[in-house]
């Protein structure tokens, strides 16, 4: 017998043995399929939520990385500002990133005739900003800023309600200028934006960059340069490259800016592995049990084989072939189930009932499962690898049988 035909025979025997007790096999198959489905499906939900959190944060002015003054993170004041990028930095940004833009971001106080509240004032270059953040698509009344000299202001719908003001009205913005003179200036509301998150609508007010630079008296200075890439995973390398041309400014990737987001990612990586292992453990008891029963039932058979001169290693292979057929079939079904359920939810699951709770964690009210190849591999590798390992126990027992004693068994 050559190798390949021996293998074919082995698989055929394993397969046939599997169906000698079809009920038991079907129950075990159901268990493996449900387990594998749960591993992959749950992981895809977690990944989907994380992707959503990252995307939300990135488009909410985290970008993939930023260049800021060394002190700015600790003390977000106009005093900690940067000059506009020089030719070296600008060409490095053009070369290394897909989109980049400059901003001034300072805390400010907005007052209407009736109310006063605090916001983050964000001065942007409207054309470039459109590639980076949500604001260009979010305006629902009036218009987006037209150019870097636009004298208007855009505020969120919730903020407009709170201030009891509306499109076309004037509001006063107060913030600190470079010499601790309170700079204040009236702006006409030219646009109202809407987002899924009410808190976000109350947080940001947008004016144009040149207007802000004149109003604050800071020449061409900015407080941040934000950049994005085709793939956010490359951010740390690009941030390090940009640091070379950023002088003494602080060039960071998003992972270093938003620690919570980054730790959520690594925490979930660990959780995915733990979850897969837990499900496998719960499965393994049943798997070993099923095989042990199959071996126990066929004691005489194995005794006879051994008496006829079959090597113990062949018996181990025989039992393993049966177990692997079972695992492989369970994996195929589980993967198919997972694929179908993930596909059927591609449009997203509406979880708006807990929207504010999700907002606390930075996630949105629609959950979209995201299937990643490496998660799929991990789940399948664990079930196949550890499953084979667990099957060795009953296989080994079958091989160690004393043929005489086994044949005497009624």
């Amino acid at each position, binding site marked *: 017998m050559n190798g390949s035909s021996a293998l074919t025979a082995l698989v055929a025997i394993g397969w046939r043995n599997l169906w000698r007790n079809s*009920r*038991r096999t079907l*129950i*075990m198959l*159901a*268990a493996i399929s*449900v*387990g594998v489905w*749960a591993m992959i499906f*749950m992981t895809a*939900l977690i990944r989907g939520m994380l992707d959503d959190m990252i995307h939300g944060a990135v488009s909410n002015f985290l970008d993939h990385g930023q260049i800021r003054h060394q002190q700015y993170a600790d*003390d*977000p*004041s106009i*005093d900690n500002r940067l000059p506009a990028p020089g030719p070296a930095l600008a060409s490095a940004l053009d070369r290394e990133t897909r989109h980049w833009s400059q901003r001034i971001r300072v*805390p*400010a*106080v907005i*007052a209407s*005739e*009736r*109310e*006063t*509240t*605090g916001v983050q004032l964000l001065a942007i270059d409207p054309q470039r900003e459109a590639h980076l953040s949500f604001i260009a698509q979010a305006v629902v009344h009036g218009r987006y800023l037209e150019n870097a000299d636009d004298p208007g202001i855009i505020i969120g719908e919730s903020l407009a*309600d*709170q201030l*009891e003001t509306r499109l076309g009205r004037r509001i006063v913005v*107060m*913030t*600190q200028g470079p010499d*601790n003179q*309170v700079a204040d200036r009236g702006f006409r509301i030219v646009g109202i934006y809407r987002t899924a998150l009410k808190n976000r609508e109350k947080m940001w007010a947008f004016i144009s960059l040149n207007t802000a630079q004149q109003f604050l008296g800071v020449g061409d200075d900015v407080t941040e340069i934000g950049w994005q890439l085709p793939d956010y995973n490359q951010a740390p390398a690009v941030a390090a490259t940009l640091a070379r041309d950023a002088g003494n400014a602080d060039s960071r990737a998003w992972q270093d800016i938003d620690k*919570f987001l*980054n*730790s*959520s990612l690594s*925490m979930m990586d*660990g959780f995915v592995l733990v*979850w897969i292992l*837990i*499900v496998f*453990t*719960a499965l393994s*008891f*049943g798997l*070993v*049990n099923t095989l*042990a*029963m199959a071996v126990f039932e066929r004691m005489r058979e194995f005794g006879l084989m051994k008496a006829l001169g079959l090597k113990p290693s062949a018996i181990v292979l025989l039992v393993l072939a049966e177990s692997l057929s079972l695992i492989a079939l369970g994996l195929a079904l589980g993967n198919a189930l997972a694929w179908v359920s993930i596909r059927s939810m591609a449009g997203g699951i509406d*979880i708006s*009932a*807990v*929207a*504010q*709770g*999700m*907002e*606390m*964690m930075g996630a949105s009210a629609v959950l979209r499962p995201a299937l990643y190849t490496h998660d799929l591999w991990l789940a399948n590798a664990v079930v196949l690898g550890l499953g084979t390992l667990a099957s060795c126990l009953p296989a080994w027992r079958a091989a160690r049988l004393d043929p005489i004693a086994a044949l005497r068994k009624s």
Partner: protein
Amino acid sequence: MTLPPSLLMAWRNLWRHRRRTWLTASAMIFANALLIFGICLQTGTYQMMIDNGLRLLTGHLQVQAQGYLDDPRMRTTVAQIQPLARQLRDQLHRPAAARAQGFALLSSEQRSFGVQILGVEPAQERHISFLPAQIKRGSYLSEHAQRQLVLGSVAARNLKVGVGDEITLLGSGLDGSFAAAVLTVTGIFETGLNDLDRGLAQMHLADFQSVFSMQGAGHQIVLRSASLADVAALKTAVSQTLNSRPELTTLDWDQLQPELRQAIAADMASSWFMYGVLIILVAFSVMNTQLMAVLERIREFGVMLALGLRPARLSLLVLIETAMLALLGLVFGLLVGGSLAALLSHTGFTFPGMEEYAAQFNMDARIYPRLTFWSVMTGPLVIFTASLLASLYPALRLLGLQPLNAMRSAT
């Protein structure tokens, strides 16, 4: 001690296959232990989220003017707020503190920043909020209005001020008038929550009322109940006291901070999805074991039927066996899971990334599982029930068994 014969029989049958019984019990022990640990952990975490989330500022209940919650405007006020807070304290014997809330630009020598500013009754605030205890430098506001200010550590750093420094406050008053005052920084607090440490300041309510031309009004009366369970009763009592003031409304923590309950609900849903998967896997395990146990004894059962035993008795026997098996899993699962949870409920534990995560919910980075009757027993009882349900399939198959066929069947 003698067991009834059917129990004795079931017990002996279990041990005909020691290995099989222990493997199946192990699956239950594993799932039980995980569920006990998981549910105790959730119970502890939720408790911490709620306590910390509410004890910092929100309180269990608040009295506000109708509409203030959705739209917190300066002029949506509670008139004569201090006497009303005093009345609530006297009648309900629970802490109640009046507050007013506004927004102002604080300017130091070098910097200006906008902050949320709360006018508080310092003596009462201590009973309601953890914040007065979080003073890191200086001291909390004194009981009498002396134009003092406490602010968060990040705000103090950004404004470059320390204890004893003067700060100018600019804002607009209730009537739209210009509100301005010079206040002295008396204390700096640090809660660990960036939003508060960066953007919150407190001053005496009486000072707030004079600076912002409030004419004795405020925005919230914050109450603390004895425990979460007593909130509903306290809410009813407060509402009755306020019968004469239809412009006011009483809100509980769930209305004030819906995100807290929703974050808990979302977490619950995902946890129970995972528990459900484990329970189903255990049920399959049990179903398989009991099906084998029935099939290999078909001939035996045939003999018993021929001797006049009713099929229902056989089904019962299988169920009793399952119950014993499940009890075994339950007892050992309780031991393993319970002792793990009990141990960690004393020492607490943390894992990588927990710190940043906890900060988001104003929690300690160490989490402590909490053992209550239900947090310990829910998981095991569900698994016990699921095991019994799973064995119904093999048990009910015996009902139609014919003695002759059964005795002929090859095992």
